[in-house]
């Protein structure tokens, strides 16, 4: 972990723990966060555990015993994991290119930012058009592929999610990579490391934060995604968020919906904990 990040942690500690008067600065946010987020979410989750006035796990039992819900949870994890892997690798590579190889870093960052300026729903509708029958993509691919149409498939959802999450990964990684002192890489080369060895032994472990933060962000965004599966997945490929939406919107089943929401949170947090532990051991092995 870099010196810089330690300095940052120290500063954070001194703001939160050290100086009492600084806490006043945090007060408005803490109040707003409590009133507008913690309380409603607490209320919602309490519905998951309360049925007819008694505390029960009946909602969770129903989720775990219904194949439909199990499949939806597994599909959500599968799609999110695939999205995370694709986004992490391609986002890291692009960020690496932007920071270390490109001659016009600012222009490229602006281009990445431009993709975020159009509303997600509109971007996803763009994919709907592109994936539909008779689309230009189908015409182009027709000599090679018989039936191109991938609309209403998991592949389409993943493509939509990758496009949605990629800028987040890129921005996080560019920030971390820009802070790596290039003379460290030069020092490694000078001591006999090839470009690739220098990357593996220095750049990658020093950008561990980007992999962890970026990867977690992408995974969390994917797990809770709604628009992309709603428009690109169709009825057969629902993810957890869409299911919650229809449970409440169509049948008013708040209890199951809340339990499903709680499951989403716990599953995401659990998988992320494992992810962080694995990445830290794999890439940060030089530091105990």
């Amino acid at each position, binding site marked *: *972990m*870099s*010196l810089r990040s*330690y300095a940052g942690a120290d500063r954070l500690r001194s703001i939160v723990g050290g100086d009492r008067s600084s806490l006043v600065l945090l007060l408005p946010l803490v109040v707003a966060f409590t009133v507008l987020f913690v309380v409603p979410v607490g209320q919602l989750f309490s519905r998951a555990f309360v049925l007819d006035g008694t505390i029960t796990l009946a909602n969770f039992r129903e989720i775990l015993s219904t194949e439909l819900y199990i499949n939806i949870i597994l599909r959500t994890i599968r799609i999110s994991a695939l999205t995370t892997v694709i986004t992490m690798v391609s986002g890291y590579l692009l960020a690496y290119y932007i920071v270390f190889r490109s001659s016009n870093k600012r222009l490229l960052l602006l281009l990445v930012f431009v993709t975020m300026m159009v509303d997600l729903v509109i971007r996803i509708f763009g994919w709907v058009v592109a994936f539909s029958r008779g689309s230009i993509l189908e015409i182009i691919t027709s000599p090679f592929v018989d039936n191109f149409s991938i609309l209403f498939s998991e592949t389409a959802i993943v493509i939509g999610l990758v496009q949605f999450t990629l800028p987040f990964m890129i921005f996080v990684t560019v920030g971390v990579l820009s802070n790596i*002192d290039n*003379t*460290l890489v*030069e*020092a*490694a*080369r*000078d*001591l*006999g*490391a*090839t470009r690739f*060895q220098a990357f593996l*032994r*220095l750049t990658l*472990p*020093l950008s561990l934060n980007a992999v962890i933060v970026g990867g977690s962000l992408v995974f969390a965004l994917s797990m809770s995604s709604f628009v992309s599966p709603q428009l690109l997945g169709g009825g057969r490929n629902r993810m957890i968020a869409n299911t919650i939406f229809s449970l409440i919107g169509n049948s008013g089943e708040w209890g199951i919906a809340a339990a499903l929401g709680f499951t989403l949170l716990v599953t995401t947090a659990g998988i992320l904990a494992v992810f962080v532990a694995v990445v830290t051991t794999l890439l*940060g092995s*030089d*530091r105990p």
Partner: protein
Amino acid sequence: MSSININSVTKEFGDLTAVNDVSYTINDDEFFVIVGPSGCGKSTSLRLIAGFETPTRGSISLKGEPIDHLKPEDRDIRMVFQDYALFPHMSVGDNITFGLKMNNVDPDTHESRVADVLDLVGLSDIEESYPETLSGGQQQRIALARALVLEPNVLLLDEPLSNLDKNLRDRMQVELKRIQDETGVTAIHVTHNQEEALSLADRVCVMNDGVIEQIGPPEEVYYRPQNRFVAEFLGDSNTFSATVLGSDAGATVLGVADSSTRITSDATPSGGDTQTVFFRPEHVRVAERVSEEDPNTFDATVASRLFTGDKIKYQVDLAEGAEDNGLTFTAFSDSQWKTGQSVRVQVPQEHVLLL
């Protein structure tokens, strides 16, 4: 035997010429110091030798073999960076072992080699520490150890002492000299600090504006500078534009300050009547009375006094009769003179050089 050969090397960055057609040779076991103001091309020279930059024109060879096609990792040349560039996520031991691993050195020898090199740089029991917990001086020694553990042919030092305070810097200068002596490594050291250059170097190379002004042993470049830049860059100096007026009893007579003041020199002028007169402040004698027969004796007034501990540095304004003629000499003296006091100054003509 020559270690490194720089043959007509030019390095351009866009419109900027950082190094302009320079050629020189660095000998085996030599402590070679490149000194110059910032932007003179000294750091670029080092990066060219290390392989981080490639020459726009010209060629560099090591032990007679051209190395221009070799990547930095394939050159038997190691560098100590200005900010040390220690790997923050690795312990001191891992930092030093890094090069051994990258060069596939037998793992069984790692431990003893790390211990030996730490002993060489004067540290022990530090392998488990992380760089951020060490002092600047310790980090400096680790950076040195990390390069030396590979027993390189050539050691490059890029302003390694510039981040240390003066006392530590002086101690590290002595240490650097000792380590270079013990290992016999060819050292190329870059600095903007002229004192450091003079005290460390077997030979000093003064660079300015991408070209070499002079190369030679420290005493030679200090006392016999080849041009005004070298004279003024290294230490304090008295330099004046002068016109040759003729010769008298084997000495050259020169006029300075519109020929109102005459200075004689043992040196013979080469090329043209316009010369630069040069002498060091330590050669200027300040006295109440100087024998009238001595040439180059002037009336003067003490204009300023600067006590630097080991000496006192005076600025004296020269006067021709009652007129101040605008000339000011810098002089070192052990005696106490008050500001405003009238003195006589004398410059022995054998110490007056013409550049």
